[in-house]
C-alpha cells in the first residue's frame, strides 16, 4: 500500500458512541474483494473524504482483527462533520498506517499504567483493548482516565468489565461528573492520589492534552518513573502523514514519522515548551 496514494475502504458499520463521537468500522476493498490491513496500535491513518479533505485519525481496533479496522472520531469541523454523515456502504480513502506504535513488546511481563484525558481517549483505547485481550502477558494494569463531561465517558461497560479483572485498577474522573457515582469529580491528575502501582517494573503510556500530560509526567517522575519508561502520544497539525509537509515539526522531530508515540526521554527538551 502506497503512503502517497489512498486506497478505498468501505464502511461496514457505523456506531454512534456519544453525541459527537462515532466509530467507522472499515474494510479495505480491492478488485478481488476485501484486503487485509496491517498496523500497530498507536499508529494512525490519513482518512480522506472525497471532495472534503484528509484528516489524521488513530486506528483503534485490534491489530489481529482481520475482517475490519476501526476509527473512532469526534466531529469537530469540516471533514470530521462530513465523515459523521456517512453510512454503511459508503467509501472513503485511506493512506497509512503512519507513525510509531505503543511499546507493546517492551511492556510484556511488566506493569502498565495508562493515563488519558480530555478528548484524547481514542489512541489509547486500542492499547487498553490490546492488553486485556492478552491479559496474562502483562503484570498489574492501572488506568487513570479523565474526561470533561460525564457524557464523554464512552465505552463505560467495557471499563466496568475490565475493572473486575484481577490485578487491575481503574480510576475515572470527569470535570463535570453530573452526579455519576462512578466518576471522581476533578482532573485525571488528581486521580494519582488513588493509584496503587509501583514504578519499579512499570511502563506508563499517556495520551491527551499536553498540559494534562505535562502534569502527569511530573507526577510519574516524582514516583520514580524513569524518563525512558514514560511514553506519550502527541498531536500536531498534519497534512501529509509521512514526514514531507513539515507541519508536525516538533524540535528536530516529525510527530507523524518519529511519533506520534514518543518516549519522554526523546522529547524532554521540547515537551511543554511554548511554541514547539
Amino acid at each position, binding site marked *: 500500500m502506497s*503512503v*502517497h*496514494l*489512498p*486506497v*478505498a475502504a468501505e464502511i461496514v458499520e457505523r456506531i454512534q458512541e456519544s453525541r459527537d463521537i462515532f466509530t467507522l468500522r472499515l474494510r479495505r476493498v480491492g478488485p478481488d474483494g476485501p484486503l487485509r490491513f496491517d498496523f500497530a496500535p498507536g499508529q494512525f491513518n490519513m482518512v*480522506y473524504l*472525497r*471532495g*472534503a*479533505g*484528509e484528516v489524521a485519525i488513530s486506528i483503534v481496533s485490534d491489530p489481529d482483527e482481520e475482517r475490519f479496522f476501526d476509527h473512532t472520531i469526534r466531529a*469537530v469541523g469540516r471533514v470530521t462533520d462530513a465523515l459523521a454523515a456517512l453510512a454503511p456502504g459508503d*467509501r*472513503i*480513502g485511506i493512506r497509512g498506517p503512519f507513525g510509531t506504535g505503543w511499546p507493546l513488546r517492551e511492556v510484556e511481563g511488566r506493569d502498565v499504567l495508562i493515563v488519558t484525558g480530555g478528548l484524547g481517549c481514542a489512541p489509547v483505547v486500542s492499547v487498553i483493548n490490546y492488553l486485556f485481550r492478552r491479559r496474562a502477558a502483562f503484570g498489574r494494569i492501572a488506568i487513570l482516565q479523565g474526561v470533561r463531561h460525564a457524557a464523554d465517558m464512552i465505552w463505560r461497560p467495557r471499563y466496568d468489565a475490565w475493572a473486575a479483572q484481577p490485578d487491575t485498577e481503574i480510576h475515572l474522573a470527569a470535570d463535570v461528573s453530573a452526579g455519576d457515582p462512578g466518576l471522581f469529580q476533578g482532573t485525571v491528575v488528581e486521580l494519582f492520589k488513588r493509584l496503587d502501582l509501583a514504578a519499579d517494573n512499570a511502563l506508563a503510556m499517556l495520551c491527551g492534552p499536553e498540559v494534562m500530560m505535562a502534569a502527569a509526567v511530573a507526577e510519574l517522575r516524582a514516583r520514580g518513573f524513569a524518563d525512558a519508561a514514560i511514553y506519550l502520544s502527541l*498531536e*500536531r*497539525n498534519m*497534512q*501529509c502523514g*509521512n*514526514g*514531507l*509537509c*513539515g*507541519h508536525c*515539526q516538533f*524540535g*528536530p522531530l516529525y510527530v507523524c*514519522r518519529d511519533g506520534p508515540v514518543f518516549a519522554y526521554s526523546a522529547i524532554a*527538551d521540547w515537551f511543554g*515548551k*511554548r*511554541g*514547539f
Partner: protein
Amino acid sequence: MSDFAKRAETLAAGYLPRTELQRLLDALVSTGYRCVGPRVRDGAIQYLPLDRADEFPVGVRDHQEPGSYRVEVVDDERCFAWANGPQALKPLTFAPDEVLWQFSADASDLSFTTPTRAHPMTAVIGVRGCDLAALRLQEAHFLAPGNRDPAYAARREALFLVGVDCSHPAATCFCTSTGDGPSLGSGYDLALTELDDGFLVWRGSRLADAVLATLDLPPADAQLLRRAKDQQAQAAAAQQRRMPAPQRLMGLMQRLDHAQWDDVAARCLGCGNCTAVCPSCFCSSHRAEPALDGLSGSQVRSWDSCFTLEHSTMHGRPVRADIRTRYRQWLTHKLAGWQSQYGRSGCVGCGRCITWCPVGIDLTAEAAALLETDSA
C-alpha cells in the same frame, strides 16, 4: 582547498569563447533538452525558457542589500556577473502547486490514481553553488531512501544542470562561510566559469558527455586557468557576511528564551517572504479540489510557510500564536534542526531571505546576536 582549486586540480576544462555561447544552447537542444536560463523579468533575474544566447542578461549586475534588490546594466559582455534572483531551483523540483492524486467515484466505487508525470527534459543554465547545495538538501528531504516523493522525483529526473561559478557575489551573500560557494561544489552536470572573453567548461556527470562531444572544445590553457582561479578566490574573499559555524548554531536550541527573539519579533511582519525565497524550505499544505459534479477531483499540494497561523493550528488554536515563536521556529529549524534531521544546516548562504525581507531582517545578524550572549 577551495572547491574551485580542487576542481582545477582533478578535472580538465575546455574553452568556449563568448562569441560561441550559442553553440552551447544548440548542443543542449540537439541532445534533447529545452533550455531554461537567467533573464531579467519584472526587475529581477529569473529562470525562464530561452533559446538564444543574446537573451542572457548581458552586462547585468545585481545590487542586493537587506530589504532591497536592484539590477543595472553596465557596458560589458558578461552574462553571469550577478549573484542570484528570488528563485533558486526550488520551483522546478518542488512545484508551487502539485496534484498529488486524483479520485473518481460512482454510486458503488471510489478509486484513486496518480496523475501522469511527464516533464520535458530541461537544461537549467546558470545554477549557482548555493542552488546546488540547496538541491542536495531538498533531495535529502524529498528523496530519502524509503520515503521518496514521486512528484519531486519525476521533476528532478527531467533536469540537466549547467552550473556557473559565481564571480560577483552580492553584498547579502555568505556562501563562503557555509561552504556552499561561490564556486560550484558537486551536483552539476556541466559547469561554466565565466571569464572576460569566454568560458571554461567542466564535465560534471555522464549526462554531459553527449553535449561535450557536440561542442568538441579545445582545452583551456594554463593562463586562462590561472585567471579563473584568481577570480574565484577574489569572489570568495569579497563576502562580508558570515554565518556562525554549525556547531555554534546548535547552541540556538539552548537559547529558546533569549530576549533577542522578542527583539526580532518586534520587527518581523510574519509575511513569509523569507520562506518563499528560501531554496531549502519545504513546507506544504494539502487541499481537496473537487470537480463541480463531486464525482471526481484532485488533492493538491502547495507551498506553505511556518510564518502562517494555520501552519500549526490544531483544535482551533495555533501552537505558535505569536511572531516570536514563529520566527524562532524558522530560525532554529533552519540552522539547528536541519543538522539533526539531515546532517547539515539548512542554510546555504544565498542571502535571499535578507534581500527579500521587506524590513531587511538579516538572519546572520540575528544568529550572531543570539549566540553572542548566554542570556537564557
